[in-house]
């Protein structure tokens, strides 16, 4: 009887283990996310954990917005655009121009409508500037080197230098402080009666960034999953030739995706400018490191992978930044190296690299 019980128990354990292994292998992004969120419980109190998690989400979502364009450009056109960071910087400076110089009164007014208007104007302007430059960049820098990775790396690095120098020419070489709109300053503090996480404080701006980031992810997912353009993009990631055989002009699709990707980098940069409250022409270069880690983690070409990769990077940055600030950057890169060892194609691979 007892022997029977033993075997039965073992059955259950094996079943559980198998289910766990199954989950780990088929949903690696969720598995890692769960791991990432749970482990810090052992090292900090829950209120701190909550603050860090929301902040990490905010950072991750901004990174996602910046990285999504780059991963799509790679997936669809096999173009490695190392100049992507320059578009982030450009977006930051364009957005900051609206907030700091053109609509300072609106941003400082404290009224919800005026703040939203100023933010909207800043984001739209940032996207417009980065997007139009993306058009030129695709046409004059990237198009002549389609299909040649080495030259792509070289010319996009060169292109980034030119854009950053242009930023210096237009906005001057010094840093520009970017104050957040009045309404987004300060923090939301949870009531101390809330169980476990009572008293946790979350900056208003980070909450807003989380909301906007989720909105962008939602819209992008909808476009990619439901619209014809989205189906075309996913089809193009698999085979550009077949898309052409069906009568679609792939070059237009490339151009569209490149512009959209550049515009998103600009939006991410504009959001980041108010997050950091200071901008330099080199900010894009520094952010590129995280962006690269994100797209490698997620699996080049995958929007969903990019989303989870970005959140993982955001969270690990905040957690490690709190526990051992010296190792934040190392942890980010370590995460990438570790995942590459485990899954060389990234979390959600869509293309063979």
């Amino acid at each position, binding site marked *: 009887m007892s022997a029977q019980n033993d075997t039965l128990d073992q059955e259950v354990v094996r079943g559980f283990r198998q289910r766990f292994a199954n989950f780990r292998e088929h949903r690696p992004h969720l598995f890692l996310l769960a791991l990432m969120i749970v482990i810090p419980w052992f090292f900090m109190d829950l209120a701190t954990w909550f603050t860090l998690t929301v902040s990490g989400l905010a950072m991750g979502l901004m990174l996602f917005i910046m990285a999504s364009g780059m991963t799509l450009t790679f997936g669809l056109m096999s173009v*490695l655009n*190392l100049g992507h960071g320059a578009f982030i910087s450009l977006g930051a400076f364009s957005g900051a121009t609206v907030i700091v110089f053109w609509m300072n009164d609106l941003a400082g007014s404290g009224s919800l409508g005026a703040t939203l208007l100023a933010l909207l104007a800043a984001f739209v302007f940032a996207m417009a500037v980065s997007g139009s430059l993306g058009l030129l960049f695709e046409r004059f*820098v990237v198009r*002549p*080197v389609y299909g040649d*990775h*080495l*030259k792509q*790396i*070289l*010319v996009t*690095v*060169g*292109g980034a*230098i*030119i854009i950053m*120098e*242009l930023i*210096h*020419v*237009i906005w001057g*070489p010094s840093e520009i402080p970017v104050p957040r709109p009045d309404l987004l300053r300060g923090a939301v503090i949870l009531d101390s009666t809330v169980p476990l996480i009572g008293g946790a404080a979350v900056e208003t701006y980070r909450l807003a960034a989380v909301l906007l980031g989720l909105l962008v992810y939602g819209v992008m997912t909808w476009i990619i999953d439901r619209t014809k353009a989205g189906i075309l993009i996913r089809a193009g990631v698999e085979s550009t030739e077949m898309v052409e055989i069906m009568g679609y002009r792939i070059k237009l699709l490339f151009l569209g995706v490149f512009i959209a990707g550049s515009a998103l980098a600009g939006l991410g940069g504009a959001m980041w400018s108010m997050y950091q409250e200071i901008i330099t022409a080199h900010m894009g*270069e*520094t952010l*590129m*490191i995280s962006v*690269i*880690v994100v797209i*490698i983690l997620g699996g080049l070409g995958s929007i969903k992978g990019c989303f989870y990769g970005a959140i993982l990077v955001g969270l690990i940055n905040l957690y490690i930044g709190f526990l051992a*600030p*010296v*190792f*934040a*950057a*190392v942890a*980010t*890169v*370590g995460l*990438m*190296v570790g995942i*590459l*060892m485990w899954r*060389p194609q990234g979390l959600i691979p869509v293309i063979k*690299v």
Partner: protein
Amino acid sequence: MLNAILSGDHPRSRILSALLLVIFICLALGPFLFSSTRAFTTLGMICIFIVVVASYDVMLGYTHIVSFAHTMFFGIGAYAVAMTIGAMGNSFGAIGLGILAAVLAATALALLLGLLSLRVKAIFFALVTLAVAFAFMTMVNQLYTITGGEDGLRVRVPRELGPAFRLIENDLYGFSITTFLAGLFTQPWNLGEVIRESVYNVRVNGRVVMYYICFFFSLGMFLFMLRMMNSPFGRVLQAIRENEFRAEALGYRTVYYRTATVVLAAVVTALAGVLFALFNRYVNPENTLDFELMVFILLMCVIGGMGTMYGAVIGATLFLLAENYLQDVLRVLGGYVDGVPLVSGLVGPERWLFWFGLLFVLSVYFFPKGMVGQLRVWADARRRRREESG
């Protein structure tokens, strides 16, 4: 004789040979041809960066491996010697230990990166090295107790390599080319006077000794790598570059060759980093590890000519001269367009990098083989014309 020294890989262009000869003479007699300290420093940097760029060319040009971690290895060398000297004092023993540590660390890290590139494909290598190099730089910045953080470390070189030491008691004579040329143009009627003015005294101190260490290191390393690239090993690398699949099918483990290349380049550049620390006597993240420096190395390699070795000499020399002197030229040019908005901004002395970026992109499109490649194309065309006519 010359054939053996150059491993049979000649410049194959008269203009190129002439340029190389001029550079060689200027570097070899450097302290005796240029009197200013700025020129002295620039010459030393050219010697060091010829090695850095040539070792980068071994990866980029000969094997088409794009690495963004070259500055990391350079920094490893520089910091290793700076830290051992900091800990043990300014002895040659400390330098030796620093070199040993640098070589070991560079080898280990390069092997690790190489192993990672076994698992991920070539295109990933660029991205992975970029991220790893960045993490390394952040570490150096953060661990300021041992690295000095952003302030960096001063390197107290042994007395024999410092300005106080005299190798030869009496001063030697130098002949300043710049003074001579300036005089030649401004007062050509007064040639005797000009020549007399051009002669100056050279104190053969430890700095000059250090310069010649750099020079001979540079020369030796360059010829060594030239030999490597013209050996069977180098041929295999080029075969892998042209057609990896076929090279693999012929029985070459491409992965081993790639990793060996990365390790070789890493060790050589780490040694160059050691010399940089000793010559510059000051290391910080900006002058050894910065991403901008990495991009500069890339620019030097591509503009000079990838996969030619001589391109490293031309590229490094040209770039460092531009970095140090193009700003002066632009300042003069800027005077003419002063007041014109945007244009004056673009021509200003601090915008030299803009022009180099433009030059870089254009050279990738129109002269993908760089200056050396282009000179050879012209030389070949000339040769062919001559054969046809005669």
